[in-house]
Every structure is written in structure tokens, then in C-alpha cells.
């Protein structure tokens, strides 16, 4: 009984230690898409994630502040254009997050 409680404690700690910035579903989605490509613009992420322009912008700001995403602004013709890319820190954080979540979920009983 004691051993079981210790195990559950470890699981709880494992879940509690996941990266809260990535844990938010919309940001997780953004990180997942950016992790499988080199870079993309706002429109691409909007069509893939289904987020509104303002919502996406707000989440990108948080990811940028955390140093997970780098935002590059340039011009295509005369129009402003923003490309987004995961930083090395972002890739590592996303990978760690996935490992922790998988580990935590795998140790939970099904019923």
C-alpha cells in the first residue's frame, strides 16, 4: 500500500513537472506543427491549428517570450510577412514534454 502511494506520488510529481507553457493545448498544437517543419508563417499555422488570428498571436508571444519560438519579420513584395521557427531550446523542451507526458500516462492504470 505504501509502495503504491510512493509510485502515485512519483507520477503526480512527473505530471506536475511538465512544462506549463507547452501544456496548454493550443500552444502544444503550435509546437507540434513547428517541430515537423523548418519554418512557417502565421497563415499556415492558422489554417493548420484552426486558431483565430488574435489567439494565435497571443500564444506565439508566450512561446517567443519563453524562447521556444523565434519570430522573423520580413517583407514579401511590399507586404509584411512573419515566419516562425522553433529554437533549439524549443525543440528540446517539446521533446522533454512529450517524454514526461508519455511516461506519466503510461504508468497510469487503464481502469
Amino acid at each position, binding site marked *: 500500500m505504501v509502495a503504491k502511494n510512493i509510485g502515485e506520488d512519483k507520477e503526480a510529481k512527473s505530471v506536475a513537472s511538465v512544462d506549463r507553457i507547452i501544456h496548454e493545448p493550443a500552444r502544444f498544437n503550435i509546437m507540434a506543427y513547428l517541430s*515537423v*517543419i523548418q*519554418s512557417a508563417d502565421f*497563415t499556415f499555422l492558422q*489554417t493548420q491549428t484552426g486558431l483565430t488570428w488574435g489567439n494565435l498571436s497571443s500564444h506565439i508571444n508566450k512561446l517567443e517570450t519563453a524562447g521556444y519560438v523565434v519570430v522573423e519579420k520580413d517583407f514579401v513584395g511590399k507586404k*509584411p510577412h512573419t515566419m516562425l521557427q522553433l529554437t533549439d531550446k524549443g525543440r528540446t523542451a517539446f521533446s522533454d514534454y512529450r517524454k514526461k507526458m508519455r511516461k506519466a500516462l503510461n504508468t497510469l492504470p487503464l481502469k
Partner: protein
Amino acid sequence: MERDKELKELEQEVFRSYFKDGLWDIYGALILLGFGLTIVISWDYLILVFATLAVILLLFRRRIVVPRLGRVKFSSERQTKTKRSVLIAMVILTFTALLGVVFFVLFSTDSMPRWLDIWMGDHFLAAFGGMLALLVAVAAYIVGVWRYYGYAALTFIAYVLASILRPNDIEAIPILIAGSIILISGAVILTRFLRKYPLPPQETDGS
């Protein structure tokens, strides 16, 4: 491994999303319709029409698809895979073209073996359709879009039927029907795409 598989599937899904506009379907359909019409009107400048269509298609994609789906740079792994697949397609295309040249030289110099002459006379359309279908299947493999395999099968069936119907001088009909089916499919996909992805608001420079 499972983690890699999930990410790989997501990456494939993203890559495939760039082919859900139906424009390549329409282009392929117009080529097939062109081949069908050539049989009817035997026009020699068809290749120029295809080239013009290709340019129009690329311009159309740039103006219609990119503003709606956005810009993406795929990983270097994906870029390498695409280049490799395109290279395979180019090898098949070159082989097909060389085969055509060989047949043309043999035919024009009257040095075609008799059995081949007879076989080509009977099955030329089916052989050509087979090559065309192979190219479409390679394209389907490169982009991972399942409906393109269907188009490859449809193209092959149309040309086999054309080969069978050739003695009755109605060989163009199955090719034109197949082209029309693909054209309708492409038009439906394009309409759905335009409805699903309206033009997003323009970015501002913040000033």
C-alpha cells in the same frame, strides 16, 4: 520509435495539405483531355498548350493557394525525400521518352521487327496509357495523395478501353470520359478548398 512515427504522420499530413486544392487534378485532367482531343483533331502543337497550362497553373497556385494556406519551409529531410522522388520520376520520364524515340526511329526507318510492328499496331494505346498511369502513380507516391492512385488506375483503364475500341474509331471516348471525371473531381476539390479557406486578413507592419 512510436514518437517518431506520430511526428512523421503529422509531417506527412502537413505535406499532403498542400495538394488539397485540386489544381493538380485539374491540370492532369486537362492533359488527359488534350490527349483525347489529339486523337480526334490530330493537333501537333498540343505540347505548347500543356506548357502554357503549366505556367497558368503555377501562377494560379501562387495567387490562390499560398495566400490561403500560408508559406511553409519543410524540413531538410523532407526536401531530400522530395528531390529523390522527383529524380525517380525524371528517370522514368526520360526512359519513356527514349523508348518513344527508339520506336519512332525504328518506325521511320522501316526497321521495326515485324512482331513488334504488329504488337504496337494492336496495343500502342494501352502501352502509352500504361506509361502515363505509371507517371501518375509515381506522382501519387511522391505526394502521398491516395486519389492520385485512383487517377492512375482510371487513366490505364481508359487507355486499355481505347485500345479495344480503336477498330471502331471511337478510341478517344474513354480517354475523354476519364479526363472529364478527373476534371470534375478537381473542380469539386477546388471549390471546397476555396470555401474552407477564405483569404485571411493581411498582416500589418505595426506602424
